[in-house]
């Protein structure tokens, strides 16, 4: 037996004398279990109040707030599930859904610059309702006899599918503070 074989032989016997196979399996099992359990721990994931939804930012200068929270300034007149919490964003639909061309448009004041912005709340349509981050803010909302200013209407009526999924909030115009 050459020197290399002898070295391996001694090392293997040493390991066999100091450890047990059951002990090794126990440690591996513990590691696997712990790894699976860590995501279940009640750790903080943002302060927007929705489990599993982290804080977000739009990344645009002068656009403060969290697009996944109901108090985000662009959502002052939104009624529905936030696409930001549903695989989309404040300006895009989740995969597999279609943005309805018809929509309701409200006015929200941006706290950063004090200007009034026209916000288009286009609905995303075609999948089952998202069910996450339900917001019902009604600034400027009018009764259904003024349909173009009512946010209770299913605006998916202009899309291929009228199944409502979630709502976006996009800036389309801006006026000074007196508008």
């Amino acid at each position, binding site marked *: 037996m050459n020197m290399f074989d002898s070295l391996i032989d001694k090392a293997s016997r040493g390991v066999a004398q100091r450890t047990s196979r059951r002990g090794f399996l126990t440690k591996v099992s513990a590691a696997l279990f712990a790894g699976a359990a860590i995501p279940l721990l009640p750790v903080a994931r943002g302060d927007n109040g929705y489990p599993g939804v982290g804080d977000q930012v*739009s*990344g*645009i*200068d*002068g656009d403060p707030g969290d697009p996944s929270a109901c108090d985000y300034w662009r959502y002052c007149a939104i009624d529905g599930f936030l696409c930001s919490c549903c695989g989309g964003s404040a300006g895009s639909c989740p995969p597999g859904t279609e943005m309805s*061309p*018809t*929509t*309701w*448009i*409200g*006015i929200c004041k941006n706290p950063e610059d004090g200007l009034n912005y*026209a916000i*288009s709340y286009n609905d995303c349509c075609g999948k089952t309702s998202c069910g996450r981050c339900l917001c019902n803010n009604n600034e400027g909302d*009018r009764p259904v006899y*003024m349909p*173009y*200013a009512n946010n209770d209407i299913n*605006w998916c*009526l*202009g899309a291929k599918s009228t199944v409502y999924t979630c709502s976006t909030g996009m*800036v*389309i*115009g*801006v*006026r*000074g503070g007196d*508008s």
Partner: protein
Amino acid sequence: MVIHNPLTRLALTITFAISTQLSAAQPLTETDVGEFDYMIHCQGCHQADGSGTPGATPDLRSYGTALLRTVEGRQYFVRVPGSRNAPITDLQLARVLNHIIDDILADPSGQVEPLQRFDEAEVAAYRPTAIDNVDLLRATLLQQVSTGIGLQLVSQGR
């Protein structure tokens, strides 16, 4: 195109991210007051370009120019429920209608004679009267426009 070089991919990703940020940070220019009111009170159904929604909201561009050259057509534009009942003043409505004339119905080639714009007095004169059946009136007006019978053309130089 498939990019295999990791460095090239990284460079493209960074370039895209920077360009996206720059475009997003472009300050908006203030929207014209007539266009802003059009956004709030009309655009949800009529769309920014006036194309409307097939089967629900008519395409303004298909009949707007012809109707707005007649007195009856101008009355129609002021009296349709979306205009007449909008919570805006006569002056604001005149500006909204002028946005439609200037930006939606304008002929980019400049060969068609420009439409007469609205003023507050014209809107105030037409607005108090309601329309009973909008679809029927529009169909009747369009038929009259096509035949040239029964409509009073707007006098030029108003």
